[in-house]
């Protein structure tokens, strides 16, 4: 994760940025003038050279969105450029919370990381048997250093609630200059074995997810899987937006 991407950022910087923005978006989507509504539980598992860690500092692997909102490591003052709706942009000062700082310490123990996620999600499904099933969005550089992750990927996809099986989506952040791929329906165009493994581990996109992706302008078909390779930050942000909306919200 230490190596650079085509954008000049390190992969670790990029992934930390994506995760902070995603949690920020999830929390603000659940926030109304009277506070944060407990619409979601969110699980976080990180893995790297230092091993596997469940949850944020001292926390559980899966916590409520309210707990997550209450526990960023710090809140920074940033300036953001925003569309003014009339062809221009304007600057706005914003308070931006940070949960993740980039770390890249060698090693990608993907099997251990996904196993930790499977344990936490299995417990959650047992405790919430009638809830919308968890969606797992796995962001990685794709080069597992502790074996083939396909089997644990199968296990994750088979965990279920009465409303269906879990969805496993993968985002492969690669350092090479191969063409980006979004929601492919075959492994044909993927450039290496790591990407093909992650593609095959990815769930088929269900109807409501496909419809949301279509509304955002992505070409998706019956066989499209929840997988992106080398996607740019905008596409990854879209992926999180699409993948973290449960069916009821998508239908509304």
């Amino acid at each position, binding site marked *: 994760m230490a190596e650079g991407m085509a954008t000049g950022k390190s992969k670790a910087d990029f992934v930390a940025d994506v995760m902070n923005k995603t949690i920020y978006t999830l929390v*603000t989507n659940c*926030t109304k003038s009277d506070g944060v509504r407990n619409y979601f539980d969110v699980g976080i598992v990180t893995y790297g050279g230092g091993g596997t860690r469940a949850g944020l500092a001292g926390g559980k692997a899966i916590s409520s969105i309210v707990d997550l909102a209450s526990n960023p490591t710090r809140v920074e003052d940033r300036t953001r450029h*925003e569309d003014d*709706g009339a062809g221009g942009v304007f600057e706005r000062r914003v*308070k931006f919370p940070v949960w993740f700082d980039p770390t890249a310490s060698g090693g990608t123990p993907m099997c251990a990381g996904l196993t930790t996620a499977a344990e936490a999600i299995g417990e959650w499904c047992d405790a919430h048997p009638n809830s919308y099933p968890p969606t797992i969005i796995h962001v990685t550089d794709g080069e597992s250093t502790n074996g083939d992750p396909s089997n644990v990927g199968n296990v994750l996809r088979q965990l279920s609630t009465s409303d269906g099986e879990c969805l496993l989506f993968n985002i492969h952040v690669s350092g090479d200059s191969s063409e980006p791929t979004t929601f492919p329906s075959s492994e044909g165009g993927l450039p290496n074995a790591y990407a093909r493994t992650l593609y095959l581990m990815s769930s088929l996109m269900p109807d409501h997810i496909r419809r949301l992706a279509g509304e955002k302008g992505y070409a998706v078909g019956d066989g499209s899987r929840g997988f992106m390779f080398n996607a740019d930050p905008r596409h990854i942000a879209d992926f999180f937006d699409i993948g973290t909306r449960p069916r009821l919200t998508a239908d*509304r």
Partner: protein
Amino acid sequence: MISFVRAFTAPKHDGSPNEDRYAKSSDGSSCAVSDGASVSFDSGPWAELLVQGFVNGESFTREWIANTANTYAAGYDRDALDWMQQGALDRGSFASLLGVRPCQTSNSIEVLAIGDSMLAIVDAGELLHTQPYTRPEEFDASPQLLSTSAAQNEPIFQDFEVIRPDLIDLSPYGSPCLLLVTDALGHWLLSHPKRAHELTAKQSDEEFQEFVVTERHAGRLRRDDTTLLIMDCHAPSNRH
């Protein structure tokens, strides 16, 4: 001549805030309903500004929406909000708008519709016309709503600087009743068109609440804030 008759509204859950709003002009000839979206910072006040703007005769120009969004934002001290509330305020509040008013020059009405609130014309108990939707599954798509965030309104103003109302000629109808409904009831109406007469017959809050509870319990009415506004139509005085 069209005029307000009565309106009813019910929240998603007992005791929860209701983000639907409705309004009528002082003479009752212009009416509007707005459904404040759940994924919003505070959509009720935004919906209120929209329905009041319509019944006060405003043109829904890009500029009017932007100025109204500023009025909305002035109700909050952005710098004093914590990060999550500030982020939610910046993301925006969203609401539908359905407004109906008489057209001055003919036996027609002007209908302004943004989002998934629906107008239904019922004549002699029969559902004869709906807009903007005609099939229940159309309620499954994400609708374009009016937002306090200017960027979110761009698709609305791609072609024109003002939202143009549609004209509907009421001449073909005998004694039409106009129903302005928010999305849950619109979906119900298109799923059960033969029951349209039940809505026109609602006379009291108690009757409406009982209908909502029964239909929700039976799984026929989606659990959402639910609003019904009824207007009727009299022959113009120059048509004796």
